[in-house]
């Protein structure tokens, strides 16, 4: 059971990978944006032998340039923190969002290469005109194995649609961190959580 689950977690990488960027158009529909970004990332991976050979610096570069601009990391961090978010100072909030972003980039850089041979299908978008929050539902099919559902929670900001959560086979990448964040805050306060995140980003092993 765990093993099946663990395999699903791998798809998280693919999900993050599916959101790469070209200059966003303000009137672009959210599902069109996911499609454009994911095709762009796939094309980049296919055309770059260094990325294919697992060059980590290069992969992180790709993520920073093409993916990161399409996420709202402040909202992601707030979601992962739950009610603790409001008790953090603006300065702490900024550090938390920066460290959480770095952790997610690091985590999914390792698995990005597997994204190359995926096909992405889109389910019909349920959206009313004027909606500023929407879930884009996709299904990723690998050359072998069962397809995996990947949903993106998206919000409309002045500079276009941004993702604030990715739900892989039912597992939210963001709220999955909530208990871990709570535990750190219980033990060492908000600064304790910042420290732990920073340590992990410098390569300290997970508990």
């Amino acid at each position, binding site marked *: 059971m*765990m093993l099946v689950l663990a395999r699903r977690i791998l798809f998280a990488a693919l999900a993050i990978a599916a959101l790469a960027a070209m200059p966003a158009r303000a009137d672009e529909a959210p599902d069109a944006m996911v499609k454009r970004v994911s095709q762009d990332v796939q094309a980049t991976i296919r055309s770059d032998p260094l990325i294919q050979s697992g060059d980590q610096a290069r992969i992180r570069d790709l993520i920073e340039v093409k993916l990161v601009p399409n996420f709202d990391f402040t909202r992601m961090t707030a979601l992962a923190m739950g009610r603790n978010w409001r008790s953090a100072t603006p300065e702490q909030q900024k550090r938390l969002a920066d460290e959480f972003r770095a952790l997610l980039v690091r985590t999914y850089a390792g698995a990005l290469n597997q994204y190359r041979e995926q096909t992405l299908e889109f389910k019909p978008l349920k959206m009313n005109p004027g909606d500023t929050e929407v879930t884009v539902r996709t299904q990723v099919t690998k050359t072998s194995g069962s397809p995996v559902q990947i949903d993106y929670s998206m919000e409309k900001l002045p500079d276009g649609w941004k993702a604030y959560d990715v739900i892989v086979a039912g597992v939210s990448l963001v*709220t*999955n961190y909530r208990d871990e964040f709570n*535990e750190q805050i219980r033990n060492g306060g908000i600064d304790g959580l910042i420290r732990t*995140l920073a340590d992990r980003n410098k390569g300290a092993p997970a508990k």
Partner: protein
Amino acid sequence: MRPRAVRMLPIAAALAAALFLGGCAATRSKVDPLEPMNRAMFEVNDVVDGNIVKPIAELYVEAVPQLVRTGVTNVFNNIDDFFSGINGLLQGKTEKAGNDFGRVLLNTFCVLGLFDVASDLGIERGNEDFGQTFAVWGFPQGPYLFVPLFGPTTVRDGSGVLVRVAVGPVGFIPYVPLRNSIYGLGYVDLRAQALGAGEVVSTGALDRYLFIRNAYLQRRRYLVYDGNPPPAIEELEEQE
């Protein structure tokens, strides 16, 4: 009759109070009241898995071609699809069950279950199991459990797995060495599929135990609700 009922009252009240207080005190660890024991088991699992199971799975991936490994996975999935169909019926999901039985017929008779032609034709797997059936029937989830060499589960899901093992079909193979070999192959097949994900958890988690627990429980909830779970309480608070 009446005096007796009256005598019972304080007991009932005490029970209710105990349940209520217990419920309040336990809100945090309600899903995982056995956390200390589970964490110990998690560490045992790390040692055994890291030294024995994972190396075997890695060897399997190195030595056996992808095509063969996919075939092995498909054969086991084909058996699971049959039981997914049974569980679809037990939950009254006839359409899903129909898909599963259709998949089994197609995959078994076309290609002996070695290829998943049904998926290629767009017939989706039902992904039902006994744990989900118990959930739909209203059985409580029970405490979360971490079992070495098996992984995360709950009392309800674990009971489902025991039922699944009991109904077979591998358990009915009379020749014990063959039976055990098939169990072993199924196990290594699953572990091999999870190799990449272990890396992701090791890099991404602050506390791997909690990361895996949450991912497991979210995933099960999603399956029980067939992919459309209602928002969790904490998400509702978020939107207030």
